[in-house]
């Protein structure tokens, strides 16, 4: 019988997993490892995305670290990249959970939105 549906059971980790990242000044976000990446800001950090492929859609869930940490969207696959903010502001307040969705339209450019909830 022909396979007519793709179920979640056959999808890779990049579509079905959530990864907890350790906050650091330089952080690697391996887009092949998970669909959702979470961490609590504890330093101003640069997120460098690896294994990016065109069309990827990833989610970052960042809990604010207290007000003064910055998050820099860094390289894609080791190269400099452009990130276009569609809407939203980042809030580093400690009781805030930032929900950032990033769509990689190429391996050098992505568009993203930011939303928040109060924990």
């Amino acid at each position, binding site marked *: 019988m022909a396979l007519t549906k793709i179920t979640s059971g056959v999808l890779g980790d990049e579509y079905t997993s959530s990864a907890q990242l350790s906050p650091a000044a330089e952080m690697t976000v391996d887009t092949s490892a998970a669909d959702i990446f979470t961490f609590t800001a504890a330093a101003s950090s640069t997120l460098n995305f690896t294994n990016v492929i065109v069309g990827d859609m990833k989610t970052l869930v960042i809990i604010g670290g207290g*007000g*003064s940490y910055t998050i*820099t969207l860094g390289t894609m696959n080791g190269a400099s990249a452009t990130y276009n903010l569609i809407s*939203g502001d980042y*809030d*580093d307040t400690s009781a805030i959970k930032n929900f*950032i969705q990033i769509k990689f339209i190429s391996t050098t450019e992505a568009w993203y939105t930011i939303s928040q909830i109060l924990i």
Partner: protein
Amino acid sequence: MKALVKNKSIIIYKTLPNVWNNILNFKYATDEVLINHGFYDIAKPSYNPMTQTKGGLYFDEANSIVTYDVTDIDFDQDIDILDEEGNITGTEKRYKVDDIKALKLSEIKSKAGRLLQPTDWQVIRKAERSIDIDTNIATERAGILAEVNRLETEVNAFINYADVLQYRVQFFPSDEIE
């Protein structure tokens, strides 16, 4: 307040943007990061608005700040004198010492008038009914008139326009200090 220097233009930001390019929470970025993105502190130079003009913003690359150009006013500049047809017939000083002195002297008289006015009625009473002016009032009025003389002498002694311009007409300065 910061200024963005980009392509030789300067844009003032009263508050930094929350997101700038690829940096989230940009307003809390370090000075090093801000400078890397073209954001510099704005230094407001002290200047005397009576004798100097504050020009436009410019980028002081050597000191990594955006600041204002301060220029001394040229009080010796000449201007052309034109006749009715617009022809130049000569030159004259744009800032005339005698003009500014006249203004200061007028200010002295005006202030003296206000100081004397509350006791003028005693002078009128003396003229109309020969009732003597109270001693303390007479002393007070004499003091004011002495101050007028002092101030007028000081103003008339100036030869420089800027000095007259900055001269503050102040009666009984020691009293005001107290």
